[in-house]
């Protein structure tokens, strides 16, 4: 379990904009440490966002997504107080789920 995600969701004119900031190292697997050994890759592979029970975004990440990934997207619908749930899974099998209410 990593650190909590920051999730902001705002509804305006029937469209909800969701912004997610995930706390994750996103190690590429290309870097070498001081001893010259390759630092193994460690990155988020899948991230799913839901509005209530409905999936609104499924994303697959590669190691070239930046450290502490940021993601913003919009979907139609969503009212104030509705719940947005975001879950991710990384290549080491770690995962985390956080939720936030729409403002």
């Amino acid at each position: 379990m990593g650190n909590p995600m920051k999730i902001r969701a705002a509804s305006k004119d029937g469209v909800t904009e969701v912004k997610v900031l995930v706390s994750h190292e996103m190690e590429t697997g290309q870097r070498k440490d001081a001893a010259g050994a390759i630092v193994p890759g460690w990155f988020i592979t899948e991230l799913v966002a839901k509005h209530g029970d409905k999936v609104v975004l499924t994303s697959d990440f590669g190691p070239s997504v930046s450290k502490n990934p940021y993601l913003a997207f919009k979907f139609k619908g969503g009212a104030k107080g509705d719940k947005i749930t975001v879950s991710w899974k990384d290549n080491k099998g770690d995962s985390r789920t956080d939720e936030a209410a729409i403002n």
Partner: protein
Amino acid sequence: MNNQRRTVLKSGSGAALLGMLAAAGIITPGMALADWNKAAFDAKSMADTLKALGVAGTTDSKDVQVTGPDIAENGAVVPVGVASTLPNVTMVAILIEKNPNALAASFVLPEGTEANVQTRVKMGQTSNIYALVKSDGKFFMATKEIKVTLGGCGG
């Protein structure tokens, strides 16, 4: 004092929570987290990546926009956005031509989600960024060159 005990407690509750979520059907393996397309992310070149994604042919389209800086000072954090006005967009992918693995991220958009995503990517060097959009079963592309001035070479 007793750090190990803390760790054990933490990991224990974490695992229990996951178990509960799974039991409640909130996280169902293979559904909530669909299969990660390893072949596509491992592919080195643009052509291989497109093949792994099952893209047969693409059309350049003005209705797909790639947004990002013209010059990125720090290649580790380059804000990139893809937007499209095409109808029924079901998939969006961001590809970086000169990265070791071209595919940076792909998104599946269910109905109701707008074709407008923004994220941040790493870029090893100055490269073209491609946005791939699937609309009505056809693939469309747009491109933008982003210069990376990492190391202060001035691009």
